[in-house]
């Protein structure tokens, strides 16, 4: 296995697709302020505030029920908060957009449970995810041009599924599905990647490769990783946020966080 080659979205913006202008002049690419979500009286998010900087790689940890997935849901438009504001850059109010618009604005998400289109081939999965005009009529008459084909080829190589290009996604192994989903994420050319437990069910080697990939992405993209695997988090993390009962318990480097008395209490206290 060679080094991971990444198709570079920042330098490759000539695909002619207009998305809302992202303004990150003042630093953070994502603002969550005082976000509250409750289900049947249970507060999944409790006045949560969180900022992600442009180009940052952030890891988010927390015990079960801390609100990690709900937070992702709020950012990607699946769940509407009861209160609070969520901005993408300075200008894009995510609460006013639906899921597809958020995706088109440049936020990609990888789910905890690998979710690919099982009836479609690997190639078709990537083709669908590709950053392009995703309105109805253009889709009906869409044909792949050579650049786009090349893009797909590159990503397939990146995720190591070139040989399986015509196989149905449903027949892939668990790890391959994880990779395919990451590949789809790359095809979307997002500015912010939300990655939910990327290495669950992966072999040690695959985990390493994933870490490598995520690290190489950071800088040009902002990446938010939610993960339980502490070793993995340690291997990639620069800054770690701990969520507990729907709000931020603490933030800092891995060492700072691990020595924080409240964190120890939360993780071990039960």
């Amino acid at each position: 296995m060679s080094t991971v080659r990444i198709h570079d979205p920042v330098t490759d913006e000539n695909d002619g697709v207009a998305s809302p202008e992202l303004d990150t002049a003042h630093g953070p690419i994502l603002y969550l302020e005082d976000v509250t979500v409750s289900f049947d009286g249970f507060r999944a998010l409790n006045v949560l505030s969180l900022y992600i900087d442009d180009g940052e790689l952030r890891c988010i940890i927390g015990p079960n029920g801390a609100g990690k997935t709900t937070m992702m849901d709020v950012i990607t438009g699946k769940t509407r908060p009861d209160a609070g504001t969520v901005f993408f850059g300075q200008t894009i109010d995510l609460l006013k957009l639906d899921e597809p618009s958020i995706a088109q604005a440049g936020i990609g998400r990888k789910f905890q449970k690998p979710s690919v289109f099982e009836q479609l081939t690997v190639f078709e999965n990537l083709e669908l995810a590709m950053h392009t005009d995703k309105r109805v009529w253009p889709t009906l008459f869409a044909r792949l041009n050579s650049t786009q084909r090349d893009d797909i080829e590159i990503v397939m190589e990146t995720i190591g599924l070139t040989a399986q290009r015509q196989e149905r996604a449903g027949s892939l192994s668990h790890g391959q599905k994880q990779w395919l989903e990451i590949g789809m994420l790359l095809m979307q050319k997002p500015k912010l990647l939300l990655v939910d437990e990327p290495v669950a069910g992966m072999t040690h080697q695959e985990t390493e490769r994933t870490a490598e990939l995520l690290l190489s992405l950071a800088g040009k993209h902002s990446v938010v990783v939610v993960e339980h695997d502490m070793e993995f988090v340690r291997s990639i993390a620069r800054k770690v946020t701990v969520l507990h009962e729907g709000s931020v318990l603490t933030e800092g480097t891995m060492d700072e966080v691990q020595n924080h008395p409240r964190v120890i209490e939360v993780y071990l206290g039960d």
Partner: protein
Amino acid sequence: MGIGNLLARDRVGKTFLTLLALFAVVVSTLNLLVPEASAFHVSTFTVTVAGKYLCYALLALAVDLVWGYCGILSLGHGAFFALGGYAMGMYMMRQIGERGVYGNALLPDFMVFLNWKELPWYWLGFDHFWFASLMVLLVPGLLACLFGWLAFRSRVTGVYLSIITQALTYAFMLAFFRNEMGFGGNNGLTDFKDILGFNLQKDGTRVAIFLLSALFLGLGYITSRFVVESKMGRVVTAVRDAESRTRFIGYKVEHFKLWIFVFSAVLAGIAGALYVPQVGIINPSEFSPLNSLELVIWVAVGGRGTLYGAVLGAILVNYAKTIFTGILPEVWLFALGGLFVAVTLFMPDGLVGVARRLRLGGVR
């Protein structure tokens, strides 16, 4: 992309289209050119029945498109079919003109005896064939658009969607049964005389409509194939399998669903418009929820998500119906009901699925 290119990957489709063309040519030749006394003569009865089957096949195609590919189980497609039929029926009603029993050039007979004084506004324009044809496309299309927009926007899916489509067609049935609606109530529209000046009772006209049905079935098949082979086809398949995932990669799912729903409704409308001149009557029972359910079964029997399966299912089930109701009317419902159960339990992919399995089994 040329048709040949499109069909290159669809060999069954190619076979089907060839057979369809052959069938159309043979039937019409044997009807028009072979003398009636000959053993090879095909009676007009047969032509009409065959034409009816082709309309059903087109309707089944429309259902397969939304159900088989997009996962929308519509239990109200009969409504689009009937609306297309009514639009064509209204044109043919207006063509009767003074030849109605009351000799009233301004109003259809049923309006005369219900004491209507003038033609209601929604009948205006149906004197013209182009207008009626436009309405055949527009009315089902707009209804599907309105209904789909409301339903898909608020993410009504699965069973709920099926049930409210059923409510939709049921509401239409009740409405069209009302005589005040101005569509002839229970008797519907009937006693058609001619279409575009051609006498509907002439064999030539009948064969022409039969050929048109075959043509539209062929065209419907090719366009549907184009749609499902396009990237859109892959998007709707994605929607069927993982709707919310499709949203997260940036597709406005409700727009795609709406588009395919409307397209399918228009196909159903065309099928209805071709059906009515061949059977000679359109009545509110076409809106009955039972009809819509039955046509879903045609698709299931043939095999959904294949297009040709729907065509096969529609023709076979209806042919069986003609045969069974002829010889054993009491058994027909047992057979049909049993078929429903058997298909869902034992052959979820329909006949096409069975054929595929046999084929694969043979190879092994």
